[in-house]
Protein backbone atom coordinates (compact mmCIF):
# COMPACT_ATOMS: atom_id res chain seq x y z
CA UNK A 1 0.00 0.00 0.00
CA UNK A 2 1.42 3.39 -0.84
CA UNK A 3 0.69 6.81 0.64
CA UNK A 4 -0.23 7.84 -2.86
CA UNK A 5 -3.03 5.27 -3.03
CA UNK A 6 -3.95 6.11 0.52
CA UNK A 7 -4.35 9.83 -0.16
CA UNK A 8 -6.01 9.15 -3.49
CA UNK A 9 -8.63 6.93 -1.91
CA UNK A 10 -9.01 9.39 0.95
CA UNK A 11 -9.35 12.22 -1.49
CA UNK A 12 -11.99 10.46 -3.50
CA UNK A 13 -13.85 9.92 -0.25
CA UNK A 14 -13.24 13.51 0.75
CA UNK A 15 -14.44 14.97 -2.53
CA UNK A 16 -17.43 12.68 -2.62
CA UNK A 17 -18.20 13.74 0.94
CA UNK A 18 -17.88 17.43 0.17
CA UNK A 19 -20.03 17.03 -2.92
CA UNK A 20 -22.78 15.28 -0.98
CA UNK A 21 -22.72 17.81 1.86
CA UNK A 22 -22.88 20.65 -0.65
CA UNK A 23 -25.68 18.98 -2.55
CA UNK A 24 -27.68 18.38 0.64
CA UNK A 25 -26.97 21.92 1.75
CA UNK A 26 -28.65 23.13 -1.43
CA UNK A 27 -31.19 20.47 -2.35
CA UNK A 28 -32.76 19.91 1.07
CA UNK A 29 -33.60 23.58 1.77
CA UNK A 30 -34.80 24.04 -1.81
CA UNK A 31 -37.05 20.99 -1.72
CA UNK A 32 -38.32 22.20 1.65
CA UNK A 33 -39.11 25.70 0.41
CA UNK A 34 -40.10 25.23 -3.24
CA UNK A 35 -41.87 21.88 -3.42
CA UNK A 36 -45.48 21.79 -2.19
CA UNK A 37 -45.84 20.48 1.37
CA UNK A 38 -46.73 16.80 1.49
CA UNK A 39 -45.32 16.03 -1.95
CA UNK A 40 -43.14 12.97 -1.77
CA UNK A 41 -39.84 14.75 -2.34
CA UNK A 42 -40.61 17.66 -0.06
CA UNK A 43 -38.43 17.57 3.04
CA UNK A 44 -40.60 18.79 5.93
CA UNK A 45 -39.29 21.58 8.11
CA UNK A 46 -38.83 19.38 11.15
CA UNK A 47 -36.44 17.19 9.18
CA UNK A 48 -34.52 20.27 8.04
CA UNK A 49 -34.13 21.29 11.68
CA UNK A 50 -33.24 17.72 12.62
CA UNK A 51 -30.59 17.36 9.92
CA UNK A 52 -29.30 20.79 10.74
CA UNK A 53 -28.66 19.44 14.23
CA UNK A 54 -26.86 16.41 12.81
CA UNK A 55 -24.65 18.63 10.69
CA UNK A 56 -23.63 20.63 13.77
CA UNK A 57 -22.83 17.38 15.54
CA UNK A 58 -20.76 16.41 12.51
CA UNK A 59 -18.67 19.56 12.93
CA UNK A 60 -18.18 18.72 16.60
CA UNK A 61 -17.13 15.20 15.60
CA UNK A 62 -14.59 16.62 13.12
CA UNK A 63 -13.08 18.77 15.83
CA UNK A 64 -12.73 15.76 18.11
CA UNK A 65 -11.29 13.59 15.38
CA UNK A 66 -8.69 16.24 14.63
CA UNK A 67 -7.18 15.94 18.10
CA UNK A 68 -7.98 12.33 18.91
CA UNK A 69 -7.61 10.68 15.54
CA UNK A 70 -4.50 12.58 14.47
CA UNK A 71 -2.81 13.64 17.70
CA UNK A 72 -4.00 11.02 20.17
CA UNK A 73 -5.49 13.58 22.57
CA UNK A 74 -8.74 12.08 23.87
CA UNK A 75 -10.77 14.97 25.23
CA UNK A 76 -13.79 13.87 27.26
CA UNK A 77 -14.74 17.49 27.70
CA UNK A 78 -15.22 18.73 24.17
CA UNK A 79 -18.91 19.22 24.85
CA UNK A 80 -17.77 22.14 27.01
CA UNK A 81 -16.38 24.06 24.04
CA UNK A 82 -19.47 23.20 22.01
CA UNK A 83 -21.70 24.48 24.81
CA UNK A 84 -19.65 27.65 25.35
CA UNK A 85 -19.98 28.52 21.67
CA UNK A 86 -23.66 27.79 22.02
CA UNK A 87 -24.01 30.04 25.04
CA UNK A 88 -22.27 32.89 23.23
CA UNK A 89 -24.79 32.59 20.40
CA UNK A 90 -27.62 32.08 22.89
CA UNK A 91 -26.72 35.30 24.69
CA UNK A 92 -26.89 37.18 21.40
CA UNK A 93 -30.30 35.65 20.65
CA UNK A 94 -31.51 36.54 24.17
CA UNK A 95 -30.49 40.16 23.68
CA UNK A 96 -32.40 40.21 20.39
CA UNK A 97 -35.67 39.40 22.18
CA UNK A 98 -35.74 42.94 23.57
CA UNK A 99 -39.21 43.99 24.71
CA UNK A 100 -40.85 40.85 23.38
CA UNK A 101 -40.03 38.95 26.58
CA UNK A 102 -43.01 38.10 28.77
CA UNK A 103 -42.17 40.99 31.10
CA UNK A 104 -41.52 43.33 28.21
CA UNK A 105 -38.24 44.41 29.75
CA UNK A 106 -36.16 46.09 27.00
CA UNK A 107 -32.78 45.05 28.44
CA UNK A 108 -33.07 42.16 30.88
CA UNK A 109 -33.89 38.64 29.69
CA UNK A 110 -36.94 37.14 31.40
CA UNK A 111 -35.04 34.92 33.83
CA UNK A 112 -33.19 37.98 35.11
CA UNK A 113 -36.46 39.80 35.64
CA UNK A 114 -38.05 37.15 37.81
CA UNK A 115 -34.85 36.50 39.73
CA UNK A 116 -34.98 40.32 40.02
CA UNK A 117 -31.52 41.26 38.77
CA UNK A 118 -31.05 44.99 39.24
CA UNK A 119 -29.14 45.36 35.97
CA UNK A 120 -27.47 43.40 33.22
CA UNK A 121 -24.32 41.57 34.47
CA UNK A 122 -21.14 43.01 32.92
CA UNK A 123 -20.37 39.86 30.94
CA UNK A 124 -23.66 40.22 29.07
CA UNK A 125 -22.66 43.53 27.54
CA UNK A 126 -21.79 43.59 23.89
CA UNK A 127 -23.79 40.47 23.08
CA UNK A 128 -26.47 42.60 21.48
CA UNK A 129 -24.05 43.03 18.57
CA UNK A 130 -23.78 40.04 16.28
CA UNK A 131 -20.15 40.58 15.36
CA UNK A 132 -19.20 40.62 19.04
CA UNK A 133 -21.13 37.43 19.74
CA UNK A 134 -19.61 35.80 16.67
CA UNK A 135 -16.17 36.78 17.91
CA UNK A 136 -16.92 35.33 21.34
CA UNK A 137 -18.09 32.10 19.72
CA UNK A 138 -14.50 31.59 18.62
CA UNK A 139 -12.73 33.41 21.42
CA UNK A 140 -14.28 31.94 24.56
CA UNK A 141 -13.80 28.25 23.71
CA UNK A 142 -10.46 29.04 22.11
CA UNK A 143 -9.23 30.89 25.17
CA UNK A 144 -10.37 28.21 27.59
CA UNK A 145 -8.77 25.52 25.44
CA UNK A 146 -5.58 27.56 25.22
CA UNK A 147 -5.26 28.09 28.96
CA UNK A 148 -6.25 24.52 29.77
CA UNK A 149 -3.94 23.08 27.11
CA UNK A 150 -1.09 25.38 28.03
CA UNK A 151 -1.19 24.03 31.58
CA UNK A 152 -1.84 20.41 30.72
CA UNK A 153 0.49 19.89 27.76
CA UNK A 154 3.39 21.83 29.22
CA UNK A 155 3.34 19.65 32.32
CA UNK A 156 2.96 16.63 30.04
CA UNK A 157 -0.39 15.38 31.27
CA UNK A 158 -1.18 12.68 28.75
CA UNK A 159 -3.46 9.78 27.94
CA UNK A 160 -5.97 8.77 30.53
CA UNK A 161 -4.98 11.55 32.93
CA UNK A 162 -5.75 14.17 30.32
CA UNK A 163 -9.06 12.54 29.49
CA UNK A 164 -10.05 12.52 33.14
CA UNK A 165 -9.18 16.16 33.78
CA UNK A 166 -10.96 17.29 30.62
CA UNK A 167 -13.94 15.48 32.10
CA UNK A 168 -13.39 17.31 35.38
CA UNK A 169 -13.32 20.59 33.43
CA UNK A 170 -16.64 20.06 31.71
CA UNK A 171 -18.18 18.72 34.93
CA UNK A 172 -17.07 21.82 36.83
CA UNK A 173 -18.58 24.01 34.10
CA UNK A 174 -21.77 21.97 34.26
CA UNK A 175 -22.13 22.69 37.97
CA UNK A 176 -21.20 26.33 37.49
CA UNK A 177 -23.78 26.94 34.77
CA UNK A 178 -26.43 25.15 36.84
CA UNK A 179 -26.09 27.86 39.45
CA UNK A 180 -28.65 30.56 38.90
CA UNK A 181 -26.36 33.11 40.54
CA UNK A 182 -24.02 32.53 37.63
CA UNK A 183 -26.24 34.65 35.41
CA UNK A 184 -26.82 32.25 32.54
CA UNK A 185 -30.34 31.17 33.36
CA UNK A 186 -29.39 28.20 35.52
CA UNK A 187 -30.83 24.83 34.62
CA UNK A 188 -33.30 26.32 32.16
CA UNK A 189 -30.51 27.93 30.22
CA UNK A 190 -31.38 30.30 27.42
CA UNK A 191 -34.46 29.73 25.29
CA UNK A 192 -37.54 31.19 23.62
CA UNK A 193 -35.44 32.97 21.00
CA UNK A 194 -37.24 35.31 18.64
CA UNK A 195 -35.00 36.26 15.76
CA UNK A 196 -31.45 36.21 14.47
CA UNK A 197 -30.09 39.15 12.43
CA UNK A 198 -33.67 40.32 12.09
CA UNK A 199 -35.03 37.05 10.69
CA UNK A 200 -37.55 35.05 12.71
CA UNK A 201 -35.71 31.92 13.92
CA UNK A 202 -38.84 29.84 13.41
CA UNK A 203 -39.54 30.96 9.86
CA UNK A 204 -38.99 28.20 7.34
CA UNK A 205 -36.72 30.45 5.33
CA UNK A 206 -34.47 31.07 8.33
CA UNK A 207 -34.34 27.38 9.12
CA UNK A 208 -33.37 26.63 5.54
CA UNK A 209 -30.72 29.33 5.66
CA UNK A 210 -29.38 28.03 8.98
CA UNK A 211 -29.22 24.57 7.49
CA UNK A 212 -27.26 25.86 4.50
CA UNK A 213 -24.95 27.72 6.88
CA UNK A 214 -24.38 24.58 8.92
CA UNK A 215 -23.50 22.65 5.78
CA UNK A 216 -21.17 25.46 4.80
CA UNK A 217 -19.67 25.37 8.27
CA UNK A 218 -19.15 21.63 7.90
CA UNK A 219 -17.47 22.07 4.52
CA UNK A 220 -15.19 24.83 5.76
CA UNK A 221 -14.14 23.01 8.91
CA UNK A 222 -13.60 19.87 6.86
CA UNK A 223 -11.31 21.76 4.49
CA UNK A 224 -9.44 23.27 7.43
CA UNK A 225 -8.95 19.84 8.97
CA UNK A 226 -7.82 18.46 5.61
CA UNK A 227 -5.37 21.30 5.20
CA UNK A 228 -3.95 20.66 8.66
CA UNK A 229 -3.66 16.90 8.48
CA UNK A 230 -2.28 16.81 4.96
CA UNK A 231 0.38 19.40 5.70
CA UNK A 232 3.70 18.39 7.20
CA UNK A 233 2.21 19.47 10.52
CA UNK A 234 -0.26 16.64 10.06
CA UNK A 235 2.62 14.19 9.79
CA UNK A 236 4.15 15.63 12.94
CA UNK A 237 0.82 15.21 14.75
CA UNK A 238 0.69 11.56 13.73
CA UNK A 239 4.31 11.18 14.77
CA UNK A 240 3.43 12.61 18.18
CA UNK A 241 0.44 10.30 18.39
CA UNK A 242 2.53 7.21 17.61
CA UNK A 243 5.82 8.01 19.40
CA UNK A 244 5.67 11.16 21.45
CA UNK A 245 9.12 11.04 23.02
CA UNK A 246 10.70 10.04 19.69
CA UNK A 247 9.40 13.23 18.14
CA UNK A 248 10.74 15.15 21.12
CA UNK A 249 14.20 13.72 20.45
CA UNK A 250 13.94 15.04 16.90
CA UNK A 251 13.46 18.51 18.33
CA UNK A 252 9.71 18.95 17.94
CA UNK A 253 8.03 21.06 20.65
CA UNK A 254 5.29 18.54 21.28
CA UNK A 255 3.38 20.84 23.65
CA UNK A 256 3.11 23.65 21.10
CA UNK A 257 1.79 21.27 18.47
CA UNK A 258 -0.77 19.86 20.86
CA UNK A 259 -1.74 23.32 22.04
CA UNK A 260 -2.22 24.56 18.47
CA UNK A 261 -4.42 21.69 17.36
CA UNK A 262 -6.34 21.56 20.66
CA UNK A 263 -7.20 25.25 20.48
CA UNK A 264 -8.12 25.01 16.80
CA UNK A 265 -10.44 22.12 17.48
CA UNK A 266 -12.01 23.94 20.44
CA UNK A 267 -12.83 26.88 18.17
CA UNK A 268 -14.42 24.51 15.66
CA UNK A 269 -16.48 22.97 18.43
CA UNK A 270 -17.54 26.46 19.46
CA UNK A 271 -18.76 27.23 15.94
CA UNK A 272 -20.67 23.97 15.90
CA UNK A 273 -22.38 24.97 19.12
CA UNK A 274 -23.22 28.41 17.78
CA UNK A 275 -24.87 26.92 14.69
CA UNK A 276 -26.65 24.34 16.84
CA UNK A 277 -28.39 26.70 19.25
CA UNK A 278 -30.65 28.69 16.88
CA UNK A 279 -31.76 25.43 15.26
CA UNK A 280 -32.70 23.53 18.42
CA UNK A 281 -33.92 26.71 20.13
CA UNK A 282 -32.35 26.13 23.54
CA UNK A 283 -28.95 26.01 25.20
CA UNK A 284 -28.64 24.85 28.79
CA UNK A 285 -26.10 23.30 31.15
CA UNK A 286 -26.94 19.71 30.24
CA UNK A 287 -24.81 20.28 27.14
CA UNK A 288 -21.84 20.27 29.53
CA UNK A 289 -22.73 16.84 30.89
CA UNK A 290 -19.69 14.53 30.62
CA UNK A 291 -21.98 11.94 29.07
CA UNK A 292 -22.54 14.16 26.03
CA UNK A 293 -18.82 14.57 25.44
CA UNK A 294 -18.23 10.84 25.71
CA UNK A 295 -21.06 10.23 23.26
CA UNK A 296 -19.46 12.64 20.81
CA UNK A 297 -16.22 10.71 21.06
CA UNK A 298 -18.17 7.57 20.31
CA UNK A 299 -19.55 9.07 17.10
CA UNK A 300 -15.95 9.43 15.98
CA UNK A 301 -15.11 5.89 17.00
CA UNK A 302 -18.11 4.55 15.12
CA UNK A 303 -17.38 6.52 11.97
CA UNK A 304 -13.68 5.85 11.98
CA UNK A 305 -11.07 7.52 14.16
CA UNK A 306 -8.40 9.24 12.07
CA UNK A 307 -10.60 9.57 9.02
CA UNK A 308 -12.30 12.95 8.80
CA UNK A 309 -15.12 11.68 6.63
CA UNK A 310 -15.67 8.89 9.12
CA UNK A 311 -16.00 11.29 12.03
CA UNK A 312 -18.70 13.31 10.31
CA UNK A 313 -20.44 10.18 9.07
CA UNK A 314 -20.36 8.64 12.55
CA UNK A 315 -22.01 11.69 14.05
CA UNK A 316 -24.85 11.50 11.57
CA UNK A 317 -25.29 7.73 11.76
CA UNK A 318 -25.36 7.51 15.55
CA UNK A 319 -27.69 10.47 15.94
CA UNK A 320 -29.98 9.22 13.22
CA UNK A 321 -30.11 5.90 15.07
CA UNK A 322 -30.92 7.80 18.26
CA UNK A 323 -33.76 9.68 16.59
CA UNK A 324 -35.05 6.48 15.06
CA UNK A 325 -34.89 4.32 18.16
CA UNK A 326 -36.28 6.88 20.60
CA UNK A 327 -39.73 6.88 19.06
CA UNK A 328 -42.42 4.23 18.62
CA UNK A 329 -42.31 0.69 19.91
CA UNK A 330 -38.51 0.67 20.23
CA UNK A 331 -38.49 3.60 22.66
CA UNK A 332 -38.01 1.55 25.83
CA UNK A 333 -35.15 -0.42 24.32
CA UNK A 334 -33.14 2.23 22.53
CA UNK A 335 -30.52 2.49 25.27
CA UNK A 336 -29.81 -1.21 24.80
CA UNK A 337 -29.25 -0.62 21.11
CA UNK A 338 -27.08 2.45 21.65
CA UNK A 339 -24.99 0.66 24.28
CA UNK A 340 -24.70 -2.44 22.16
CA UNK A 341 -23.66 -0.30 19.20
CA UNK A 342 -20.77 1.18 21.17
CA UNK A 343 -19.60 -2.20 22.40
CA UNK A 344 -19.85 -3.91 19.03
CA UNK A 345 -18.13 -1.13 17.15
CA UNK A 346 -15.16 -1.05 19.52
CA UNK A 347 -14.94 -4.84 19.43
CA UNK A 348 -15.65 -5.63 15.80
CA UNK A 349 -14.92 -2.40 13.93
CA UNK A 350 -11.95 -0.90 15.79
CA UNK A 351 -11.20 1.17 12.70
CA UNK A 352 -14.79 2.37 12.48
CA UNK A 353 -16.99 2.22 9.41
CA UNK A 354 -14.86 4.29 7.06
CA UNK A 355 -11.56 2.99 8.41
CA UNK A 356 -12.65 -0.59 7.79
CA UNK A 357 -13.93 0.32 4.37
CA UNK A 358 -10.62 1.97 3.43
CA UNK A 359 -8.64 -0.99 4.72
CA UNK A 360 -10.79 -3.28 2.62
CA UNK A 361 -10.44 -1.33 -0.61
CA UNK A 362 -6.71 -0.87 -0.06
CA UNK A 363 -6.07 -4.56 0.48
CA UNK A 364 -8.20 -5.27 -2.58
CA UNK A 365 -6.08 -2.92 -4.67
CA UNK A 366 -2.73 -4.07 -3.25
CA UNK A 367 -1.44 -5.01 -6.69
CA UNK A 368 -2.11 -1.73 -8.44
CA UNK A 369 -0.59 -0.12 -5.38
CA UNK A 370 2.69 -1.96 -5.81
CA UNK A 371 2.69 -1.13 -9.52
CA UNK A 372 2.18 2.58 -9.05
CA UNK A 373 4.60 2.50 -6.11
CA UNK A 374 7.41 1.63 -8.51
CA UNK A 375 6.41 4.55 -10.70
CA UNK A 376 6.37 6.96 -7.75
CA UNK A 377 9.39 9.06 -6.85
CA UNK A 378 10.48 12.01 -4.72
CA UNK A 379 8.74 13.10 -1.55
CA UNK A 380 5.09 12.21 -1.74
CA UNK A 381 3.31 15.36 -0.71
CA UNK A 382 -0.37 15.02 -1.48
CA UNK A 383 -2.23 18.18 -2.53
CA UNK A 384 0.95 20.18 -2.19
CA UNK A 385 1.80 20.85 -5.80
CA UNK A 386 -0.52 23.62 -6.96
Amino acid at each position, binding site marked *: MTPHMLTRSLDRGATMFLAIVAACGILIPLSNLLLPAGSFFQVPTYLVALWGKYVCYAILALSIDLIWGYCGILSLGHGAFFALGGYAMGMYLMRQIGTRGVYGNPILPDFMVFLNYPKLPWYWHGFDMFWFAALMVLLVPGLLAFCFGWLAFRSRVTGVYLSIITQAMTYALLLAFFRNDFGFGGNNGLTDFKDILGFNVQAEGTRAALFMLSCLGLIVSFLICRAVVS*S*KLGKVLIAIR*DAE*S*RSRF*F*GYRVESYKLFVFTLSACMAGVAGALYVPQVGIINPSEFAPGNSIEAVIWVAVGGRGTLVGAALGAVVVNYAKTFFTSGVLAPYWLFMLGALFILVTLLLPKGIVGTFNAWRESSSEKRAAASAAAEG*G*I*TEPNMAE
Partner: protein
Amino acid sequence: MNVMDTRATSAMLYLDGVHVSFDGFRAINNLSLALEPGEMRAIIGPNGAGKTTMMDIITGKTKPDVGVVLFDGVTDLTRLDETRIAELGIGRKFQKPTVFESQTVQDNLLLALNVDHSVRGTLFWRGSKAESERIDKVLETIRLTEARNRLAGSLSHGQKQWLEIGMLLAQDPKLLLVDEPVAGMTDVETHLTAELLKEINKTHTVMVVEHDMTFVRELGVKVTCLHEGTVLAEGSIDQVSSNERVIEVYLGR
Protein backbone atom coordinates in the same frame (compact mmCIF):
# COMPACT_ATOMS: atom_id res chain seq x y z
CA MET B 1 21.65 31.60 30.08
CA ASN B 2 22.75 28.01 30.12
CA VAL B 3 25.95 28.72 28.17
CA MET B 4 29.04 29.04 30.35
CA ASP B 5 31.27 32.02 29.72
CA THR B 6 34.47 30.01 29.20
CA ARG B 7 34.81 26.68 27.47
CA ALA B 8 35.31 24.32 30.39
CA THR B 9 36.58 21.37 28.38
CA SER B 10 37.56 20.40 24.88
CA ALA B 11 35.29 17.37 25.06
CA MET B 12 32.16 17.12 22.88
CA LEU B 13 30.39 15.40 25.78
CA TYR B 14 31.57 15.68 29.35
CA LEU B 15 29.98 13.97 32.36
CA ASP B 16 31.37 14.46 35.86
CA GLY B 17 30.22 13.08 39.20
CA VAL B 18 26.68 12.35 38.04
CA HIS B 19 24.26 10.70 40.48
CA VAL B 20 20.68 9.53 39.88
CA SER B 21 18.48 7.37 42.04
CA PHE B 22 14.88 6.17 41.60
CA ASP B 23 13.19 5.84 44.98
CA GLY B 24 16.33 4.68 46.73
CA PHE B 25 17.80 2.62 43.90
CA ARG B 26 21.03 4.24 42.65
CA ALA B 27 20.86 3.93 38.88
CA ILE B 28 23.89 6.20 38.25
CA ASN B 29 26.57 6.53 40.85
CA ASN B 30 29.32 9.12 40.47
CA LEU B 31 29.62 8.57 36.73
CA SER B 32 32.27 10.53 34.85
CA LEU B 33 33.36 10.24 31.24
CA ALA B 34 34.33 12.43 28.27
CA LEU B 35 33.93 12.09 24.52
CA GLU B 36 36.29 14.04 22.29
CA PRO B 37 34.87 15.56 19.11
CA GLY B 38 34.94 13.09 16.23
CA GLU B 39 35.43 10.20 18.58
CA MET B 40 33.40 6.99 18.52
CA ARG B 41 32.97 5.35 21.93
CA ALA B 42 31.52 1.95 22.72
CA ILE B 43 29.80 1.52 26.08
CA ILE B 44 29.46 -2.01 27.44
CA GLY B 45 28.24 -3.36 30.72
CA PRO B 46 25.79 -5.82 32.30
CA ASN B 47 22.06 -5.15 32.45
CA GLY B 48 21.18 -2.47 34.99
CA ALA B 49 24.65 -0.97 34.68
CA GLY B 50 22.90 2.33 33.91
CA LYS B 51 23.69 2.56 30.20
CA THR B 52 20.24 3.62 29.10
CA THR B 53 19.77 5.86 32.14
CA MET B 54 22.99 7.61 31.16
CA MET B 55 21.52 8.28 27.71
CA ASP B 56 18.30 9.52 29.36
CA ILE B 57 20.39 12.00 31.31
CA ILE B 58 22.33 13.22 28.28
CA THR B 59 19.14 13.67 26.25
CA GLY B 60 17.30 15.42 29.08
CA LYS B 61 14.70 12.73 29.67
CA THR B 62 15.98 12.24 33.21
CA LYS B 63 17.41 14.95 35.44
CA PRO B 64 20.46 13.96 37.54
CA ASP B 65 20.35 14.53 41.29
CA VAL B 66 23.86 16.00 41.18
CA GLY B 67 26.65 16.19 38.62
CA VAL B 68 27.85 18.10 35.57
CA VAL B 69 26.77 17.24 32.04
CA LEU B 70 28.42 19.49 29.46
CA PHE B 71 27.84 19.41 25.72
CA ASP B 72 30.39 20.92 23.40
CA GLY B 73 32.20 22.15 26.48
CA VAL B 74 29.82 25.05 27.02
CA THR B 75 26.22 23.91 27.37
CA ASP B 76 24.86 22.51 30.61
CA LEU B 77 22.44 19.83 29.46
CA THR B 78 20.94 19.21 32.91
CA ARG B 79 18.94 22.41 32.59
CA LEU B 80 17.40 21.70 29.17
CA ASP B 81 14.52 19.56 27.94
CA GLU B 82 14.64 16.93 25.21
CA THR B 83 13.53 19.26 22.43
CA ARG B 84 16.13 21.89 23.19
CA ILE B 85 18.87 19.25 23.47
CA ALA B 86 17.85 17.73 20.17
CA GLU B 87 17.98 21.18 18.61
CA LEU B 88 21.52 21.59 19.97
CA GLY B 89 22.49 18.57 17.88
CA ILE B 90 22.28 15.44 19.96
CA GLY B 91 20.51 12.56 18.26
CA ARG B 92 19.44 9.39 19.96
CA LYS B 93 18.56 5.92 18.79
CA PHE B 94 16.48 3.94 21.24
CA GLN B 95 17.26 0.47 22.53
CA LYS B 96 14.04 -0.81 21.02
CA PRO B 97 13.85 0.57 17.47
CA THR B 98 11.33 3.44 17.55
CA VAL B 99 10.11 4.70 14.20
CA PHE B 100 6.79 6.28 13.20
CA GLU B 101 5.17 2.99 12.25
CA SER B 102 2.05 4.34 10.57
CA GLN B 103 4.00 6.57 8.19
CA THR B 104 6.13 5.75 5.19
CA VAL B 105 9.89 5.33 5.32
CA GLN B 106 10.50 8.58 3.52
CA ASP B 107 8.03 10.47 5.65
CA ASN B 108 9.95 9.19 8.66
CA LEU B 109 13.10 10.68 7.22
CA LEU B 110 11.25 13.83 6.24
CA LEU B 111 10.17 14.27 9.84
CA ALA B 112 13.73 13.73 11.03
CA LEU B 113 15.28 16.41 8.78
CA ASN B 114 16.68 19.22 10.90
CA VAL B 115 14.68 21.98 9.24
CA ASP B 116 12.27 24.42 10.85
CA HIS B 117 10.43 22.42 13.52
CA SER B 118 8.07 25.18 14.64
CA VAL B 119 4.31 24.85 14.30
CA ARG B 120 4.11 27.56 11.66
CA GLY B 121 7.09 26.14 9.82
CA THR B 122 5.49 22.73 9.46
CA LEU B 123 2.02 24.07 8.75
CA PHE B 124 3.18 26.11 5.75
CA TRP B 125 5.96 23.75 4.74
CA ARG B 126 6.67 23.21 1.06
CA GLY B 127 8.86 20.38 -0.21
CA SER B 128 12.18 21.47 -1.70
CA LYS B 129 14.66 19.88 -4.10
CA ALA B 130 17.44 20.01 -1.51
CA GLU B 131 15.36 18.12 1.04
CA SER B 132 14.32 15.37 -1.33
CA GLU B 133 17.95 14.94 -2.36
CA ARG B 134 19.05 14.63 1.26
CA ILE B 135 16.41 12.03 1.80
CA ASP B 136 17.40 10.10 -1.31
CA LYS B 137 21.00 10.15 -0.09
CA VAL B 138 20.08 8.83 3.34
CA LEU B 139 17.90 6.16 1.75
CA GLU B 140 20.96 5.11 -0.25
CA THR B 141 23.10 4.98 2.87
CA ILE B 142 20.68 2.83 4.84
CA ARG B 143 19.81 0.69 1.80
CA LEU B 144 16.05 1.40 1.99
CA THR B 145 15.54 3.16 -1.37
CA GLU B 146 13.33 0.31 -2.54
CA ALA B 147 11.17 0.48 0.56
CA ARG B 148 10.79 4.26 0.61
CA ASN B 149 7.01 4.13 0.18
CA ARG B 150 6.35 1.27 2.54
CA LEU B 151 4.91 1.92 5.94
CA ALA B 152 7.69 1.89 8.51
CA GLY B 153 5.63 -0.53 10.57
CA SER B 154 5.90 -3.13 7.81
CA LEU B 155 9.72 -3.15 7.86
CA SER B 156 11.76 -6.01 9.27
CA HIS B 157 13.44 -5.55 12.63
CA GLY B 158 16.85 -4.91 11.09
CA GLN B 159 15.41 -2.45 8.59
CA LYS B 160 13.74 -0.56 11.42
CA GLN B 161 17.11 -0.32 13.20
CA TRP B 162 18.59 1.11 10.03
CA LEU B 163 15.70 3.42 9.40
CA GLU B 164 16.15 4.84 12.87
CA ILE B 165 19.86 5.32 12.25
CA GLY B 166 18.93 6.88 8.92
CA MET B 167 16.62 9.26 10.73
CA LEU B 168 19.54 10.27 12.92
CA LEU B 169 21.57 10.93 9.78
CA ALA B 170 18.77 13.06 8.38
CA GLN B 171 18.67 14.90 11.69
CA ASP B 172 22.44 15.36 11.21
CA PRO B 173 23.38 15.92 14.86
CA LYS B 174 26.84 16.68 16.21
CA LEU B 175 26.59 13.76 18.62
CA LEU B 176 24.84 10.46 18.03
CA LEU B 177 23.81 8.21 20.91
CA VAL B 178 23.16 4.72 19.58
CA ASP B 179 21.56 2.22 21.98
CA GLU B 180 22.08 -1.46 21.03
CA PRO B 181 21.93 -0.99 17.24
CA VAL B 182 22.49 -4.65 16.35
CA ALA B 183 20.16 -6.28 18.89
CA GLY B 184 18.36 -9.07 17.03
CA MET B 185 20.30 -8.66 13.77
CA THR B 186 21.80 -11.39 11.61
CA ASP B 187 25.58 -11.55 11.38
CA VAL B 188 25.47 -9.99 7.92
CA GLU B 189 23.27 -7.14 9.12
CA THR B 190 25.52 -6.70 12.17
CA HIS B 191 28.57 -6.42 9.91
CA LEU B 192 26.83 -3.91 7.64
CA THR B 193 25.72 -1.90 10.67
CA ALA B 194 29.29 -1.71 11.93
CA GLU B 195 30.36 -0.43 8.51
CA LEU B 196 27.52 2.08 8.57
CA LEU B 197 28.51 3.40 11.99
CA LYS B 198 32.15 3.75 10.97
CA GLU B 199 30.96 5.64 7.92
CA ILE B 200 28.85 7.92 10.11
CA ASN B 201 31.72 8.41 12.54
CA LYS B 202 33.71 10.07 9.77
CA THR B 203 31.45 13.10 10.14
CA HIS B 204 29.89 12.71 13.59
CA THR B 205 30.79 12.00 17.18
CA VAL B 206 29.17 8.71 18.14
CA MET B 207 28.44 6.87 21.39
CA VAL B 208 27.37 3.22 20.96
CA VAL B 209 25.93 1.07 23.70
CA GLU B 210 26.19 -2.60 22.80
CA HIS B 211 26.36 -6.08 24.33
CA ASP B 212 27.60 -7.87 21.20
CA MET B 213 31.39 -8.09 21.83
CA THR B 214 32.23 -9.21 18.29
CA PHE B 215 30.43 -6.10 17.06
CA VAL B 216 32.27 -3.87 19.52
CA ARG B 217 35.53 -5.54 18.50
CA GLU B 218 34.66 -4.89 14.84
CA LEU B 219 34.13 -1.22 15.59
CA GLY B 220 37.62 -1.18 17.02
CA VAL B 221 37.20 1.92 19.14
CA LYS B 222 37.78 2.98 22.73
CA VAL B 223 35.54 1.05 25.11
CA THR B 224 34.01 2.08 28.43
CA CYS B 225 32.59 -0.60 30.71
CA LEU B 226 29.89 0.54 33.13
CA HIS B 227 28.91 -1.34 36.26
CA GLU B 228 26.36 -0.29 38.88
CA GLY B 229 26.15 3.17 37.39
CA THR B 230 29.82 3.95 37.41
CA VAL B 231 32.84 3.46 35.12
CA LEU B 232 34.51 0.15 35.75
CA ALA B 233 37.15 0.20 33.06
CA GLU B 234 38.11 2.22 30.02
CA GLY B 235 40.50 1.63 27.09
CA SER B 236 40.89 -0.51 24.01
CA ILE B 237 38.69 -3.56 23.72
CA ASP B 238 41.62 -5.81 24.55
CA GLN B 239 42.54 -3.91 27.69
CA VAL B 240 39.01 -3.83 28.90
CA SER B 241 38.19 -7.46 28.14
CA SER B 242 41.34 -8.54 29.99
CA ASN B 243 40.43 -6.45 33.05
CA GLU B 244 39.81 -8.71 36.08
CA ARG B 245 36.76 -6.85 37.40
CA VAL B 246 35.19 -6.63 33.96
CA ILE B 247 35.56 -10.36 33.44
CA GLU B 248 34.15 -10.95 36.90
CA VAL B 249 31.05 -8.77 36.68
CA TYR B 250 30.34 -8.85 32.97
CA LEU B 251 32.14 -11.21 30.62
CA GLY B 252 32.30 -14.07 33.05
CA ARG B 253 34.91 -16.78 32.94
